[in-house]
């Protein structure tokens, strides 16, 4: 191995440890007995393993609530909202917008506006969004959250897909136009399928972002399925304080449960993710 390869490998190992350590930490915390959670110095290798944290009920408004395994009513809301908003944001907004911006409206400022939209902090928008969603009578509904999530999904999806569309050789589309396809058919039959790796990346990245989103969900929802649209990040808050003490064990156990879907999707999608991010990075 060359010197640079060794260096690179070492850096990658360090980076992996930094990335993976929190996951390791939450998993062992979920499995630790209470006495080992709170010790100083911390215990990195628990001596006793327990599943009791998974059976510790959380607390809602001072009342005893569900255990970590009771996440289903929140999971279903998260799944519906994350799936629909990432699909709608990618297929109905991101892909057509990105295609138009790379093929027809080659306006740099328009493209940059898309980027600027991603820079606006959620905190600045949460109050106006609350008012809008309230007036639409969509508080505590799936569509209320989906509409608001599109505000960050659509720009990211557009920006990401612009890279993919600009890498499709013009000559392929020109060949299609000579072969007799109209502009719409070229988009649907040629360009969109050729950008499929990007479409998949956009769906997955946005799904994970929507799955993790906390602030809007906190403000716009207040009950779990079936009465409302509260999502899993809110489910976790039930475990922060139980019986007036910090309940790290229960919180960690609930955290482990809710990250499982993201991890499964992430593992499945990793080959697209690698290809997607590097490809999208080449061109503006």
């Amino acid at each position, binding site marked *: 191995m060359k010197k640079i390869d060794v260096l690179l490998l070492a850096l990658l190992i360090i980076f992996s440890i930094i990335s993976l350590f929190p996951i390791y930490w939450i998993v062992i915390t979920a499995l630790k007995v209470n006495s080992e959670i709170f010790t100083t110095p911390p215990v990195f290798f628990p001596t006793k393993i327990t599943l009791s944290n998974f059976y510790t009920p959380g607390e809602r408004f001072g009342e005893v609530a569900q255990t970590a395994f009771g996440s289903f009513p929140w999971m279903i809301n998260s799944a519906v909202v994350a799936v629909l908003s990432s699909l709608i944001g990618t297929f109905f907004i991101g892909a057509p917008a990105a295609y138009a911006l790379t093929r027809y409206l080659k306006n740099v400022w328009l493209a940059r506006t898309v980027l600027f939209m991603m820079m606006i902090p959620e905190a600045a928008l949460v109050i106006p969004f609350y008012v809008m969603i309230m007036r639409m009578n969509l508080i505590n509904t799936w569509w209320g959250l989906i509409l608001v999530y599109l505000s960050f999904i659509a720009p990211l999806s557009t920006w990401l897909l612009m890279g993919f569309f600009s890498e499709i*050789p013009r*000559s*392929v589309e*020109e*060949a*299609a*136009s*000579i*072969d*007799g*396809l*109209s502009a719409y*058919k070229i988009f649907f039959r*040629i360009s969109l*399928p*050729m950008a*499929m790796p990007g479409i998949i990346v956009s769906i997955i990245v946005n799904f994970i972002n929507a799955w993790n989103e906390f602030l809007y969900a906190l403000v716009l929802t207040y009950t779990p399925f079936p009465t409302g649209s509260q999502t899993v990040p809110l489910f976790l808050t039930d475990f922060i304080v139980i019986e007036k003490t910090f309940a790290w064990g229960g919180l960690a156990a609930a955290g482990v449960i809710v990250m499982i879907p993201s991890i499964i999707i992430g593992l499945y999608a990793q080959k697209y993710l690698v290809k997607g991010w590097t490809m999208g990075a080449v061109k503006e």
Partner: protein
Amino acid sequence: MMSEVVIENVTKKFGSVVALDHINLTIRPGEFFVLLGPSGSGKTTLLRIIAGLEDVTEGSIYINGKKVNDVPPKDRDVAMVFQNYALYPHFTVYDNIALPLKVRGLSKDSIAQRVKEIAVRLHIEDLLNKKPRQLSGGQQQRVALARALVRNPSIFLLDEPLSNLDAKLRVEARTFLKGLQRDLGVTTIYVTHDQSEAMALATRIAVLNKGVLKQVGDPYELYSRPGDIFTAGFIGSPAMNMIPGKIVKANGSWRFVASDFTLELNNMNFSSEREAIMGIRPEHIIISDDGIGCTISTVEPMGSVTYITVNVGGTSLTVQYTGLAKLEPNATIKIKFAMDKILFYDKGTGKLITE
């Protein structure tokens, strides 16, 4: 169907850059017409204008007498093969070839039959279920040809289709393409920067340089009487020898005075004395005992011929000798020009002035 293409006074500007400058051309039905020029000559732009992929800034395009300036590519009944083949990577070879027919609403059976026919003709019938990325460059090129030819277009456009193939395959594909075009009889417009490809394929060639049409003619004409200095230098390999000098009249007869020799020009007539460039092809310089003395600088044996570079004073000339010449650098030989093959060009305008 054989179609005629007329290009009338076509100008194309990209911003302030003039890509094509008042081009007039008629491409006859069934002809294999080659647009030849170096990169930046405007040849691909002209092809794209005929295809409908670019608009003209000025002028008109007619296909079979019908003005097509505002007709979109899909309605011009043209087919095109791109330099990078532009196959649809997510379709199989079969679907690539079938797409133009599907778009035109043919029945499934007749599509299958036509695809099969063209695939057999192009020897790709075993590849129909593969994806383009599984094919070699030569196979991809044939698929691109098949896709273009499957719907019997009235005009067949090719943009440097052989440039991505290796040298051996390129010569094979060239022969194949020429035979195919002759069999189909479809009007073909072919863009290349390779003069030997143009010579080998064309019924007629149009030479373009910097957006200006230099000359149109069959390969024989262009080779034997190039109309200007650019065409003379561009067509033929090795290139025509160019010797600067002056045409003067003395004692009632014309002569060419170069820096290192003087040539009596019997039987030639010029309108006036002037600065000129003498052009002579390597095969028209003969090694002869009664010629001009010169020194050999390099000898390149090619097998059937030998190229000998000689210096006449300060001028370097390439001589083509038929067969293998056993000559050494720095030796002295004498050369003579085949007087009836010499061409003279005006130094200022670059135009042919030999009558």
